[in-house]
């Protein structure tokens, strides 16, 4: 799994590529915490290139969403598709996120 981080104002865009499973989701968690420690309040998870997510990844997203909410921030999802979107929808974990078609749309949504 590859993670690219881009800072845009108070938000950090984390673009994830590849597979997020029990072994690799720790990298995503570390990247999120690093971005938050660097001053980001909100996180955009750009899932355009994410091809697989396991229960460990889903659990991590729920945990991070809670953490950000407690810190008066927000995590939003951009471009989840295919199996990844299906997993979020089937488990209903998608109900705790705002979902956007792209990272740019997510940034615009966060500033509103």
């Amino acid at each position, binding site marked *: 799994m590859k993670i690219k981080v881009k800072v845009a104002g108070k938000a950090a865009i984390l673009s994830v590529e590849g597979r997020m499973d*029990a072994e690799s989701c720790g990298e995503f968690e570390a990247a999120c915490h690093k971005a938050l420690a660097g001053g980001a309040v909100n996180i955009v998870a750009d899932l355009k290139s994410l091809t697989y997510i*396991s*229960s*460990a990844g*889903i*659990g991590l997203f*729920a*945990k991070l*969403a*809670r953490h950000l909410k407690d810190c008066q921030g927000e995590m939003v999802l951009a471009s989840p598709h295919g*199996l990844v979107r*299906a*997993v979020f929808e*089937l*488990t*209903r*974990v998608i109900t*705790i996120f705002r979902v956007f078609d792209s990272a740019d749309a997510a940034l615009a949504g966060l500033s509103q």
Partner: protein
Amino acid sequence: MSLERDAVRLVLGVVPVFAFLWALALLDTYKLVTFRRILRAVAWGSAAACVCYLINSSAMRALGSWYARLGAPIVEEVSKAAYILWLARTAQVGFMVDAAICGVAAGAGFALVENVADLHLLGGTTLAVWTLRGFGTAMMHGGTTAIVGVSAANAVHSGRPDRVAAFAPGLLLAILIHSAWNTALLTPLEASITVLLGLPVVFTIVFIRSEKSLRKWMGDKLDKDMELLHMISTGRFLETNAGRYLCALRDSLPPRIVGDMLCLLQVSLQLSVRAKGALILREAGFSVDADPAIDAQFRELKFLEKSIGIAGRRALDPLLPLSSRDLWEMHRLSEGE
């Protein structure tokens, strides 16, 4: 003054066990047991204590003091265990964690009534002795019923046809501990200290192990369920071993039934994945609202089960073992608790 003293004694004797119960509920990260269920268990325990008090009083008069050592523990443990067994049988508890919490709660309710009855029996004791004795009694009752709960949860998931035999050792152990408590092998103070030090350690270990296995089970199964469900919804089910197995059944079962078997598999997987998703959300601290669409899915599930009949169910078992654990998840999901 006497009333005030009794009230203080009662609080000192019972409040710590409710604190222990609260601590156990905190360890329940998936929030398997609702506050309402805990209250119901406490109410059952209290009611059972009232009934046992009447039975024991009459029996003690007729049979003498040996009854307190041997008869009363059997009557009391069976009356508390009845509730836990009912919960396990109706799939309202599914894991060691929630079964143990309900057990401790039922035992705490029982001890509450027993301590009230004992207030006057132990009227002459000092406050310190009473506290240890009252707390010890409450822990003993909570602990023994929790043992029954853990063994009931194990029995339900053992898959053994003789589940009563799988559950019986737990009940027997509970009766033996209770009987030893009543026999006064140790002084009341020594017995109380043994129970107070021993049970929390044992239960913390049980809880941590149970949480670990629950987490592993949920993660592994959720991934498999999601994968199979995705293959069905993307039309690639026939590429899987499960799909090939279902195809092979077309030779021995009518096509309509095989079609309904696939539908049953899909609906069951959807319900199972939804239930596990709800547990993930609860663990993260989100509340999960009841979904009105779930009722319709359960109705469809029942229709499909009826449609494929016993032969179809048996043929589908290797693909979808509807264990009591799965049924329990679905039950919780339908309750929207």
